[in-house]
């Protein structure tokens, strides 16, 4: 027994390059991608999103930008209430001579702006607030969550409407209003996740090896609690446009902006007299947008949630 201390262990058998962390991560991402792509409805959603994104990115080439402000609908007062198929106005024109095709194409840009800004702002704010509440707990948690409760007690749409109306009709105010309303959802999700992840034994194990609190948060807690936030963010990319269009429809963004909700509202007066096109095409775009992100969001949830695996 005495010479056991003198036994030298052989050095690791081979010193070849180890699979690096990044290689492993790339592999995992590929696995995840394959998992997501195996679901046909998700692929459909991704295809629609790709189409809409392409439309937003290449908008200046698809419909010549209006001078001086491309986000304003061009007005052709010589061609009012033209049906689809009119030369120069493929999808027809509105009561005020706005080109529906232009509105549809440039509306995808406004929608993308709206959803990206609102979702990234709310995810960041919500994650920070939810993390502080969940990680620190105690009275900090109590105070933050009561504030969140106040926000949650008013229905999303009505609250956003109230804020937007208070700030005055403008598209940027819609962005502000939606951001102020939606962040609480992420704060809630994040807090619940963190409290759940904190119970795991590997958090204790990380403490046992002497990890600092901030390291435990960034390496052990955050990566393991972020998935539901990601799924919710994807779903919200669609929902935000839906609510934004609703607010625009009521007239809370400036008139004449190339935005689907505004266009629908501009065309709705004509529906009764048979001029269906001005509302239908932008309405269809809103529908496609919301549908696509919901399909992808659902697919993402299924792919990321191990419980639904192998269905």
């Amino acid at each position, binding site marked *: 027994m005495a010479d056991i*201390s003198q036994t030298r262990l052989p050095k690791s058998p081979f010193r070849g390059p180890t699979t690096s962390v990044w290689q492993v991560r790339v592999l995992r991402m590929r696995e995840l991608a394959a998992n997501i792509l195996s679901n046909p409805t998700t692929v459909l959603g991704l295809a629609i999103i790709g189409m809409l994104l392409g439309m937003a990115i290449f908008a200046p080439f698809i419909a010549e930008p209006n001078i001086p402000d491309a986000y304003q609908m061009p007005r052709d007062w010589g061609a009012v209430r033209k049906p689809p198929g009119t030369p120069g106005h493929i999808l027809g024109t509105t009561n005020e001579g706005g080109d529906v095709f232009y509105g549809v194409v440039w509306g995808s840009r406004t929608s993308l702006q709206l959803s990206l800004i609102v979702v990234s702002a709310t995810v960041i704010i919500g994650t920070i607030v939810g993390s502080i509440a969940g990680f620190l707990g105690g009275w900090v948690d109590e105070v933050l969550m009561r504030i969140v409760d106040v926000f949650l007690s008013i229905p999303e749409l009505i609250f956003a409407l109230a804020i937007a109306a208070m700030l005055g009709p403008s598209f940027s105010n819609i962005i502000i209003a939606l951001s102020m309303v939606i962040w609480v959802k992420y704060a809630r999700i994040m807090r619940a996740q963190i409290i759940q992840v904190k119970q795991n034994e590997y958090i204790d194990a990380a403490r046992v090896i002497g990890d600092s609190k901030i390291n435990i948060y960034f390496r052990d807690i955050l990566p393991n609690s972020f998935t539901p936030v990601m799924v919710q963010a994807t779903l919200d990319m669609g929902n935000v446009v839906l609510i934004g269009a609703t607010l625009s429809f009521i007239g809370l963004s400036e008139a004449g902006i190339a935005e689907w909700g505004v266009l629908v509202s501009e065309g709705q007066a004509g529906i009764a007299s048979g001029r269906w096109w001005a509302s239908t095409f932008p309405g269809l775009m809103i529908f496609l947008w919301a549908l696509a992100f919901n399909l992808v969001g659902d697919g993402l949830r299924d792919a990321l949630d191990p419980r639904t695996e192998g269905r």
Partner: protein
Amino acid sequence: MFDENQPSLAANSANAIARVDDLKVYFNSKRGIVHSVDGVSFDIRDGETLGLVGETGCGKSVTGRSFLQLLPMPPGIQAGGSITFYPQGICEECGGKGCASCTGTGRTSVDCEACSGTGCDACGNNGAQQIDLLKLGSEKMRRIRGDRIAMIFQDPGKALNPSLTIREQVGEVFLQHRSEELLGAAGIATDAGGWQANILRRKASQMERGIEGLLLALPPLRSQRNKLELALDDMVADALTETQIANPRKLMGRYPHELSGGMRQRVMIAQALACNPDLLIADEPTTALDVTVQARILELISELKERHKTSVLYISHDLSLVRRICDRVAVMYAGRIAEIGTTEQIFNDPRHPYTRGLLAAVPTAASKRGELAAIKGSVPELVDPKPSCRFTGRCLFETEACGTFDPALQNVAPNHAVSCFIHHPPPEGARPSFDTKTS
């Protein structure tokens, strides 16, 4: 008898690596204060494996977790007592092989910082450094965790982070506690100046934040960072090799869910023993494993313990297992120590009625088929207990004194202490009657 002796504490503290003294941990609950651990005292001697056995809820895990301040303190209350830890160093005379000056263990006590070994009030006059683990600040505690005291958990599947690779998780220990060695192994001067060296130093102790990570991935620092990563790879591979894992280099890139239970537990052990700790707290490390794997993990723990000269606090409810690997055993019941002694004494000469009941309840190949022996009754509620022996109501040898007084832990033989009035008289005023109750 030995009734005047202090219960089973080591004669000199140089021999003990940690000493738990009258530890009391309570928990607030809706029905009152639960006395989970209520006055537990024992010591862990240098190089030994001390088994802490008892049934579920007797406070053995709470005791183990108290060593590292792992209990959530809003519901939990540190009601009293202390856990003194005596950090050890490798003996300089023999380099850890064992010699006369280190009494054969290869380790010596680390000198007290206040008096540098000459003896003072701070170290209790013996010159050895001692740390009260319960009163340690969080930063000091963090430095002890994983470095001087490590812990293995029951379920290795839950104790590893599912989103990090094995390399990252084992490497974390080195980054937290061995950044100097890591820098040295990577050939980076630890005392170099300049912002680049600063970032590398921060990287080596896992302190890099935000943009620094980006800078490390860019050319001037990239090659240095790669050296650091390779050095860390080597350290992690060596730690994994120690646990006899097949093909450690390949395993390092894997995630916990890709490993079997036995392999995960080996990874946990590699992580725990990476920094060569003085004390390993093993909280039922084999309960979640099947029996064949269990045997191999146990072998591994005892082998590594011998090689690293680590003392082990082995928490378990499995008596046969404890008998196999422990030098001494403490039997806990309802937040108290019922009996403590060498494995031999506990298993061959059990004195406490509870220990006897436990041992009688272990089925062996020789025991008759049919009903298993059991201790009648059930574990008492630990909410606001009255002063009495915790085993009253279930004990076959109950006396009048048992219901009104707490029996203290007192020696019945060298190294063997029991808390029971059968073995030492109850305090004055009580009328002892040692009549054995029937049934």
